[in-house]
Protein backbone atom coordinates (compact mmCIF):
# COMPACT_ATOMS: atom_id res chain seq x y z
CA UNK A 1 0.00 0.00 0.00
CA UNK A 2 1.52 3.19 -1.14
CA UNK A 3 1.55 5.94 1.45
CA UNK A 4 -0.42 9.14 1.00
CA UNK A 5 2.45 11.21 2.37
CA UNK A 6 5.84 11.67 0.76
CA UNK A 7 8.90 13.19 2.39
CA UNK A 8 12.18 14.21 0.82
CA UNK A 9 14.83 15.01 3.40
CA UNK A 10 18.31 16.33 2.68
CA UNK A 11 21.03 16.82 5.28
CA UNK A 12 23.67 19.52 4.78
CA UNK A 13 25.85 19.57 7.86
CA UNK A 14 23.37 19.62 10.73
CA UNK A 15 20.67 21.40 8.73
CA UNK A 16 17.82 19.20 7.53
CA UNK A 17 15.92 20.41 4.48
CA UNK A 18 12.50 18.75 4.61
CA UNK A 19 10.04 18.70 1.75
CA UNK A 20 6.66 17.07 2.10
CA UNK A 21 3.71 16.32 -0.12
CA UNK A 22 0.44 14.68 0.86
CA UNK A 23 -2.77 13.62 -0.79
CA UNK A 24 -5.73 15.60 0.51
CA UNK A 25 -8.69 17.22 -1.29
CA UNK A 26 -8.45 20.51 0.69
CA UNK A 27 -12.09 21.32 -0.09
CA UNK A 28 -13.00 24.92 0.71
CA UNK A 29 -16.67 24.17 1.29
CA UNK A 30 -17.54 26.76 -1.37
CA UNK A 31 -17.01 24.55 -4.43
CA UNK A 32 -19.96 23.00 -6.24
CA UNK A 33 -19.83 19.46 -7.54
CA UNK A 34 -20.00 19.88 -11.33
CA UNK A 35 -22.23 16.80 -11.67
CA UNK A 36 -24.75 17.34 -8.90
CA UNK A 37 -24.50 21.12 -8.47
CA UNK A 38 -24.32 20.63 -4.72
CA UNK A 39 -21.75 22.22 -2.43
CA UNK A 40 -18.86 19.92 -1.57
CA UNK A 41 -18.45 20.01 2.23
CA UNK A 42 -15.37 21.69 3.67
CA UNK A 43 -12.62 19.14 4.16
CA UNK A 44 -9.08 20.27 4.80
CA UNK A 45 -5.96 19.54 6.77
CA UNK A 46 -5.85 21.76 9.84
CA UNK A 47 -2.50 20.90 11.30
CA UNK A 48 0.68 19.33 9.99
CA UNK A 49 3.24 18.41 12.63
CA UNK A 50 6.85 17.31 12.28
CA UNK A 51 8.91 15.78 15.04
CA UNK A 52 12.56 14.80 14.95
CA UNK A 53 13.43 12.03 17.43
CA UNK A 54 10.08 12.89 19.07
CA UNK A 55 11.00 16.57 19.45
CA UNK A 56 8.56 18.87 17.64
CA UNK A 57 10.34 20.88 14.95
CA UNK A 58 7.40 22.34 13.03
CA UNK A 59 3.69 22.88 13.47
CA UNK A 60 2.01 24.14 10.30
CA UNK A 61 -1.58 25.37 10.59
CA UNK A 62 -3.50 25.27 7.32
CA UNK A 63 -6.70 26.92 6.18
CA UNK A 64 -8.63 25.78 3.12
CA UNK A 65 -6.44 28.19 1.13
CA UNK A 66 -3.60 25.67 0.99
CA UNK A 67 -3.69 23.95 -2.42
CA UNK A 68 -5.14 20.50 -3.00
CA UNK A 69 -2.56 17.78 -2.33
CA UNK A 70 -0.57 20.14 -0.09
CA UNK A 71 3.14 20.80 -0.39
CA UNK A 72 5.14 22.14 2.52
CA UNK A 73 8.87 22.53 3.08
CA UNK A 74 11.01 23.85 5.92
CA UNK A 75 14.47 23.52 7.46
CA UNK A 76 15.69 22.79 10.94
CA UNK A 77 19.08 22.64 12.65
CA UNK A 78 20.69 20.16 15.03
CA UNK A 79 19.84 17.22 12.79
CA UNK A 80 21.97 14.10 12.47
CA UNK A 81 22.02 11.14 10.13
CA UNK A 82 19.91 8.38 11.65
CA UNK A 83 17.43 10.81 13.27
CA UNK A 84 13.84 9.68 13.03
CA UNK A 85 11.66 12.29 11.37
CA UNK A 86 7.94 11.85 11.72
CA UNK A 87 5.22 13.81 9.97
CA UNK A 88 1.55 13.62 10.81
CA UNK A 89 -1.54 15.57 9.89
CA UNK A 90 -5.04 15.93 11.20
CA UNK A 91 -7.96 17.37 9.26
CA UNK A 92 -11.21 19.11 10.18
CA UNK A 93 -13.05 15.77 10.13
CA UNK A 94 -10.60 14.33 12.64
CA UNK A 95 -8.90 12.04 10.13
CA UNK A 96 -5.16 11.57 10.42
CA UNK A 97 -2.22 10.20 8.52
CA UNK A 98 1.45 9.89 9.35
CA UNK A 99 4.78 8.78 7.97
CA UNK A 100 8.19 8.20 9.50
CA UNK A 101 11.53 8.40 7.77
CA UNK A 102 15.17 8.24 8.80
CA UNK A 103 17.46 11.17 7.99
CA UNK A 104 20.40 10.22 5.81
Amino acid sequence: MASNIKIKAKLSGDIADIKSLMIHPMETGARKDPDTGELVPMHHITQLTFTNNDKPVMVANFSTAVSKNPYFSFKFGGANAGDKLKVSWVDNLGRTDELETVLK
Partner: protein
Amino acid sequence: MEKAAAVLVLCFATMLMHSVALAGPEEDRVAFVAFFKSRFPDIPFADYANGIYAIDRDAREQWLAIEDFPPYEFAIERGQALWQTAFPNGKTFGECFAQQQEDIRAMYPRFDELSGEVVTLEMAINNCRTANDQSLLAYDEGGIVDITAFLAFEARGKKLHVRVPDDQPGALQAYESGKRFYYSKRGQMNFACSDCHVTSVGQYVRADRLSSSLGHPTHFPVYRSKLGEMISLHQRFAGCVRDVRAKPFALQSTEFRNLEYFLSYMSNGLEANGPGARK
Protein backbone atom coordinates in the same frame (compact mmCIF):
# COMPACT_ATOMS: atom_id res chain seq x y z
CA MET B 1 4.77 25.55 -79.68
CA GLU B 2 2.61 27.53 -77.33
CA LYS B 3 0.58 24.42 -76.76
CA ALA B 4 3.67 22.42 -75.91
CA ALA B 5 4.75 25.02 -73.42
CA ALA B 6 1.33 24.96 -71.83
CA VAL B 7 1.47 21.18 -71.53
CA LEU B 8 4.90 21.45 -70.00
CA VAL B 9 3.68 24.01 -67.45
CA LEU B 10 0.71 21.81 -66.68
CA CYS B 11 2.96 18.80 -66.25
CA PHE B 12 5.24 20.74 -63.98
CA ALA B 13 2.32 22.03 -61.90
CA THR B 14 0.94 18.53 -61.56
CA MET B 15 4.32 17.26 -60.46
CA LEU B 16 4.57 20.04 -57.91
CA MET B 17 1.10 19.31 -56.58
CA HIS B 18 1.97 15.66 -56.37
CA SER B 19 5.13 16.30 -54.50
CA VAL B 20 3.21 18.47 -52.04
CA ALA B 21 0.36 16.06 -51.60
CA LEU B 22 2.75 13.17 -51.23
CA ALA B 23 5.07 14.85 -48.75
CA GLY B 24 5.90 11.96 -46.46
CA PRO B 25 5.91 12.01 -42.68
CA GLU B 26 9.61 12.79 -42.53
CA GLU B 27 9.28 15.81 -44.85
CA ASP B 28 6.33 16.96 -42.75
CA ARG B 29 8.34 16.64 -39.57
CA VAL B 30 11.34 18.53 -40.90
CA ALA B 31 9.08 21.36 -42.07
CA PHE B 32 7.24 21.34 -38.73
CA VAL B 33 10.46 21.66 -36.74
CA ALA B 34 11.75 24.35 -39.11
CA PHE B 35 8.56 26.37 -38.62
CA PHE B 36 9.07 26.56 -34.87
CA LYS B 37 12.77 27.24 -35.30
CA SER B 38 11.96 30.30 -37.41
CA ARG B 39 9.20 31.42 -35.05
CA PHE B 40 11.35 31.08 -31.91
CA PRO B 41 15.00 31.16 -33.06
CA ASP B 42 16.30 31.21 -29.47
CA ILE B 43 14.56 28.10 -28.22
CA PRO B 44 16.76 25.02 -28.55
CA PHE B 45 15.04 22.01 -30.12
CA ALA B 46 15.35 19.86 -27.00
CA ASP B 47 13.53 22.45 -24.87
CA TYR B 48 10.27 21.86 -26.73
CA ALA B 49 9.91 18.71 -24.65
CA ASN B 50 8.98 21.10 -21.83
CA GLY B 51 5.87 22.19 -23.69
CA ILE B 52 4.55 25.67 -22.99
CA TYR B 53 7.40 26.29 -20.52
CA ALA B 54 9.83 26.38 -23.43
CA ILE B 55 8.02 29.52 -24.53
CA ASP B 56 6.59 31.10 -21.40
CA ARG B 57 9.53 32.12 -19.23
CA ASP B 58 7.41 33.63 -16.42
CA ALA B 59 5.36 30.50 -16.01
CA ARG B 60 8.48 28.34 -16.21
CA GLU B 61 9.64 29.36 -12.75
CA GLN B 62 6.32 28.40 -11.13
CA TRP B 63 6.39 25.15 -13.03
CA LEU B 64 9.90 24.40 -11.77
CA ALA B 65 8.73 25.16 -8.22
CA ILE B 66 6.02 22.51 -8.63
CA GLU B 67 8.35 20.06 -10.41
CA ASP B 68 10.58 20.30 -7.33
CA PHE B 69 8.09 18.00 -5.61
CA PRO B 70 5.31 17.28 -8.06
CA PRO B 71 2.00 15.72 -7.06
CA TYR B 72 2.35 13.17 -9.89
CA GLU B 73 4.91 11.28 -7.79
CA PHE B 74 1.99 9.55 -6.12
CA ALA B 75 0.71 8.44 -9.54
CA ILE B 76 4.12 7.01 -10.48
CA GLU B 77 4.20 5.02 -7.26
CA ARG B 78 0.66 3.70 -7.72
CA GLY B 79 1.41 2.90 -11.36
CA GLN B 80 4.54 0.97 -10.46
CA ALA B 81 2.58 -1.14 -7.97
CA LEU B 82 -0.06 -1.91 -10.63
CA TRP B 83 2.59 -2.70 -13.23
CA GLN B 84 4.41 -5.10 -10.98
CA THR B 85 1.35 -6.91 -9.65
CA ALA B 86 1.04 -10.27 -11.39
CA PHE B 87 -2.22 -11.33 -13.00
CA PRO B 88 -4.01 -14.33 -11.45
CA ASN B 89 -2.26 -16.55 -14.04
CA GLY B 90 1.10 -15.44 -12.68
CA LYS B 91 2.08 -13.40 -15.73
CA THR B 92 2.87 -9.69 -15.60
CA PHE B 93 2.43 -6.63 -17.80
CA GLY B 94 6.13 -6.70 -18.62
CA GLU B 95 5.75 -10.01 -20.47
CA CYS B 96 3.32 -8.42 -22.94
CA PHE B 97 5.94 -5.98 -24.18
CA ALA B 98 8.89 -6.76 -26.39
CA GLN B 99 10.91 -3.84 -25.06
CA GLN B 100 12.66 -3.24 -21.78
CA GLN B 101 10.47 -1.32 -19.34
CA GLU B 102 12.31 1.95 -19.95
CA ASP B 103 12.03 1.65 -23.71
CA ILE B 104 8.27 1.14 -23.91
CA ARG B 105 6.90 4.71 -23.69
CA ALA B 106 8.94 6.21 -26.52
CA MET B 107 7.92 3.43 -28.94
CA TYR B 108 4.23 4.28 -28.70
CA PRO B 109 1.96 4.98 -30.45
CA ARG B 110 2.80 2.38 -33.09
CA PHE B 111 0.99 0.98 -36.09
CA ASP B 112 -0.06 -2.61 -35.68
CA GLU B 113 -0.05 -4.40 -39.01
CA LEU B 114 -2.18 -7.26 -37.80
CA SER B 115 -5.14 -5.22 -36.58
CA GLY B 116 -4.47 -2.48 -39.13
CA GLU B 117 -4.72 0.32 -36.58
CA VAL B 118 -2.72 2.61 -34.37
CA VAL B 119 -2.05 1.12 -30.95
CA THR B 120 -1.40 3.62 -28.17
CA LEU B 121 0.32 2.76 -24.92
CA GLU B 122 -3.03 2.84 -23.12
CA MET B 123 -4.47 0.38 -25.62
CA ALA B 124 -1.43 -1.90 -25.40
CA ILE B 125 -1.90 -2.01 -21.63
CA ASN B 126 -5.52 -3.01 -22.04
CA ASN B 127 -4.63 -5.52 -24.77
CA CYS B 128 -2.27 -7.08 -22.28
CA ARG B 129 -5.07 -7.34 -19.75
CA THR B 130 -7.33 -8.99 -22.33
CA ALA B 131 -4.57 -11.46 -23.20
CA ASN B 132 -4.46 -12.39 -19.53
CA ASP B 133 -8.23 -12.71 -19.11
CA GLN B 134 -8.56 -9.47 -17.19
CA SER B 135 -11.26 -6.83 -17.61
CA LEU B 136 -10.39 -3.63 -19.45
CA LEU B 137 -9.34 -0.58 -17.45
CA ALA B 138 -11.46 2.53 -18.06
CA TYR B 139 -9.60 5.19 -20.01
CA ASP B 140 -10.89 8.04 -17.85
CA GLU B 141 -9.93 6.56 -14.51
CA GLY B 142 -6.82 6.53 -12.42
CA GLY B 143 -5.47 3.00 -12.94
CA ILE B 144 -4.39 3.21 -16.55
CA VAL B 145 -3.21 6.81 -16.21
CA ASP B 146 -1.09 5.78 -13.23
CA ILE B 147 0.52 2.94 -15.21
CA THR B 148 1.36 5.30 -18.07
CA ALA B 149 2.77 7.76 -15.51
CA PHE B 150 5.09 5.03 -14.26
CA LEU B 151 6.17 4.02 -17.78
CA ALA B 152 6.67 7.68 -18.74
CA PHE B 153 8.89 8.17 -15.73
CA GLU B 154 10.90 5.06 -16.55
CA ALA B 155 11.36 6.35 -20.11
CA ARG B 156 12.65 9.78 -19.17
CA GLY B 157 15.47 10.81 -21.43
CA LYS B 158 14.60 8.35 -24.19
CA LYS B 159 13.87 10.06 -27.47
CA LEU B 160 10.46 9.68 -29.08
CA HIS B 161 10.80 7.14 -31.82
CA VAL B 162 7.47 6.75 -33.59
CA ARG B 163 7.60 4.98 -36.94
CA VAL B 164 5.36 5.11 -39.99
CA PRO B 165 6.70 2.06 -41.85
CA ASP B 166 6.94 2.44 -45.63
CA ASP B 167 5.89 -1.12 -46.25
CA GLN B 168 2.60 -0.77 -44.36
CA PRO B 169 0.15 1.35 -46.33
CA GLY B 170 -2.27 1.36 -43.38
CA ALA B 171 0.32 3.18 -41.30
CA LEU B 172 0.60 6.04 -43.75
CA GLN B 173 -3.19 6.18 -43.98
CA ALA B 174 -3.52 6.46 -40.21
CA TYR B 175 -0.82 9.13 -40.15
CA GLU B 176 -2.57 11.09 -42.92
CA SER B 177 -5.87 10.85 -41.13
CA GLY B 178 -4.30 12.22 -37.94
CA LYS B 179 -2.68 15.00 -39.95
CA ARG B 180 -6.01 15.87 -41.53
CA PHE B 181 -7.69 15.97 -38.12
CA TYR B 182 -4.95 18.27 -36.86
CA TYR B 183 -5.33 20.78 -39.68
CA SER B 184 -9.15 20.70 -39.97
CA LYS B 185 -11.28 23.44 -38.48
CA ARG B 186 -14.00 22.19 -36.23
CA GLY B 187 -16.61 23.34 -33.72
CA GLN B 188 -18.62 26.49 -33.32
CA MET B 189 -15.38 28.46 -32.89
CA ASN B 190 -14.20 27.15 -36.25
CA PHE B 191 -10.62 26.43 -35.14
CA ALA B 192 -8.14 23.82 -36.28
CA CYS B 193 -5.54 22.53 -33.79
CA SER B 194 -2.96 24.25 -36.01
CA ASP B 195 -4.73 27.63 -35.82
CA CYS B 196 -3.79 27.88 -32.15
CA HIS B 197 -0.73 25.67 -31.79
CA VAL B 198 1.10 26.57 -35.02
CA THR B 199 -0.22 29.82 -36.52
CA SER B 200 -0.81 31.63 -33.21
CA VAL B 201 1.67 29.73 -31.06
CA GLY B 202 2.95 31.74 -28.09
CA GLN B 203 0.15 34.30 -28.29
CA TYR B 204 -2.44 34.86 -25.61
CA VAL B 205 -5.96 33.48 -25.50
CA ARG B 206 -7.33 35.49 -22.59
CA ALA B 207 -4.70 34.84 -19.93
CA ASP B 208 -3.27 31.67 -21.43
CA ARG B 209 -0.38 31.42 -23.83
CA LEU B 210 -0.82 28.96 -26.65
CA SER B 211 1.59 26.06 -26.45
CA SER B 212 3.62 24.64 -29.30
CA SER B 213 2.50 21.40 -30.91
CA LEU B 214 6.15 20.48 -31.24
CA GLY B 215 6.53 18.79 -27.87
CA HIS B 216 2.82 18.37 -27.13
CA PRO B 217 2.87 14.61 -26.52
CA THR B 218 6.26 14.25 -24.77
CA HIS B 219 5.18 14.81 -21.18
CA PHE B 220 1.86 13.04 -20.74
CA PRO B 221 0.14 12.02 -18.55
CA VAL B 222 0.09 15.31 -16.66
CA TYR B 223 -1.05 16.50 -13.27
CA ARG B 224 -3.38 19.43 -13.93
CA SER B 225 -3.30 21.94 -11.09
CA LYS B 226 -6.72 23.22 -11.98
CA LEU B 227 -8.20 19.73 -11.63
CA GLY B 228 -5.90 18.46 -8.92
CA GLU B 229 -5.57 15.17 -10.78
CA MET B 230 -3.80 13.31 -13.55
CA ILE B 231 -5.09 13.32 -17.12
CA SER B 232 -4.08 11.45 -20.25
CA LEU B 233 -3.19 12.94 -23.63
CA HIS B 234 -6.61 11.96 -24.97
CA GLN B 235 -8.36 13.66 -22.07
CA ARG B 236 -6.41 16.78 -23.03
CA PHE B 237 -7.46 16.33 -26.66
CA ALA B 238 -11.08 16.11 -25.53
CA GLY B 239 -10.61 19.30 -23.51
CA CYS B 240 -9.22 21.15 -26.53
CA VAL B 241 -12.01 19.92 -28.81
CA ARG B 242 -14.55 21.06 -26.25
CA ASP B 243 -12.80 24.44 -26.02
CA VAL B 244 -13.47 25.05 -29.71
CA ARG B 245 -17.04 23.93 -29.03
CA ALA B 246 -16.99 20.74 -31.03
CA LYS B 247 -18.24 17.42 -29.70
CA PRO B 248 -15.23 15.50 -28.38
CA PHE B 249 -14.46 12.01 -29.64
CA ALA B 250 -14.20 9.13 -27.21
CA LEU B 251 -10.90 8.56 -25.43
CA GLN B 252 -8.88 6.06 -27.51
CA SER B 253 -11.22 6.54 -30.49
CA THR B 254 -9.68 6.00 -33.92
CA GLU B 255 -9.72 9.79 -34.44
CA PHE B 256 -7.75 10.56 -31.30
CA ARG B 257 -5.34 7.63 -31.78
CA ASN B 258 -4.53 8.80 -35.30
CA LEU B 259 -4.10 12.36 -34.04
CA GLU B 260 -1.70 11.07 -31.39
CA TYR B 261 0.17 9.13 -34.08
CA PHE B 262 0.64 12.26 -36.20
CA LEU B 263 1.52 14.55 -33.26
CA SER B 264 3.96 12.05 -31.80
CA TYR B 265 5.68 11.64 -35.14
CA MET B 266 6.07 15.44 -35.32
CA SER B 267 7.84 15.31 -31.94
CA ASN B 268 10.20 12.48 -32.85
CA GLY B 269 13.67 13.12 -31.50
CA LEU B 270 12.45 15.02 -28.44
CA GLU B 271 13.01 13.38 -25.10
CA ALA B 272 10.12 11.72 -23.36
CA ASN B 273 9.89 13.58 -20.05
CA GLY B 274 6.55 12.63 -18.60
CA PRO B 275 4.73 12.62 -16.40
CA GLY B 276 4.39 16.39 -16.28
CA ALA B 277 2.82 19.11 -14.20
CA ARG B 278 0.60 21.63 -15.92
CA LYS B 279 -1.57 24.44 -14.66
